[in-house]
């Protein structure tokens, strides 16, 4: 079963992260590298990506003439995707355990960040929606 583990945050959260000390950032990045390696070593790793900053995010809708209508206006409460992992595991419980590890990534001062990680199953195909 494939699951996606998503890290999200508001613009304010991202601004807070951008102010972390170099040492705190380094510790966090080292944890993330080690975490990805563990996922690879245990054979559950499928993919991971980090996304660009939310201030670069655009919202696109189709215009009448087929031209994209683009804006960058989001509500303040909007949670932006910061990054994700996709894992292939035996059970949802295993996915939650791995998410808890990601959540324990060190934050400022080296304490566990306890960042919320959203865990969602990824569909094999549209048929899995069982409509």
């Amino acid at each position, binding site marked *: 079963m494939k699951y*996606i*583990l*998503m890290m999200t945050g508001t613009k304010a959260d991202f601004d807070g992260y*951008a102010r972390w000390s170099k040492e705190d950032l380094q510790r966090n990045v080292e944890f993330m590298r080690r975490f990805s390696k563990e996922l690879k070593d245990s054979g559950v790793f499928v993919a991971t*990506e*980090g*996304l*660009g*900053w939310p201030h*670069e*995010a*655009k*919202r*696109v*809708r*189709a*215009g009448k003439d*087929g*031209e*994209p*209508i*683009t804006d960058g206006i989001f509500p303040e*409460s*909007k*949670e*932006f*995707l910061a*990054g994700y992992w*996709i894992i292939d595991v035996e059970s*949802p419980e295993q996915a*939650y*355990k791995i*998410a*808890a590890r990601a*959540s*324990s990534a060190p934050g400022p001062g080296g304490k*566990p960040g*306890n*960042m*919320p*990680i*959203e*865990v*969602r*199953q*990824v*569909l094999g*195909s*549209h048929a*899995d*929606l069982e*409509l």
Partner: protein
Amino acid sequence: MKYILLMSGTKAGVQSYLAWSQKDRDAHMAVLQTVAKELTASGEFIATQGLAVPHEAKVVRGEKDGMPITDGIFPESKEFLLGYWIVDVQSPERAYAIAGRLSAATGPGGLPTNMPIEVRQFATHPQPK
């Protein structure tokens, strides 16, 4: 440049999608399949993925006694990721054009859904300080 095109919606939005007629859903999927085929032909396609319905979503925060702390409580306004497309394109404008096509995919009655598509670049470029 790699971009991710994110489709998201509230639980209410997902409920209304689940209530579409089979014909409307088939027409919608046909548009998406055409877009996937075109992007594959142009070499811009990297991946697309749909996610399971939001009522199965969990949020995990830390752990206690070695067990993950899990809940499924989200605000009603919460926008859940429904699916995404990853494309490798020459410019942001090209990513917006593809997002526009996805947004124009037909919905009930064959009208474009005009669903908003969030377009984000992957963090492979230098990040601002």
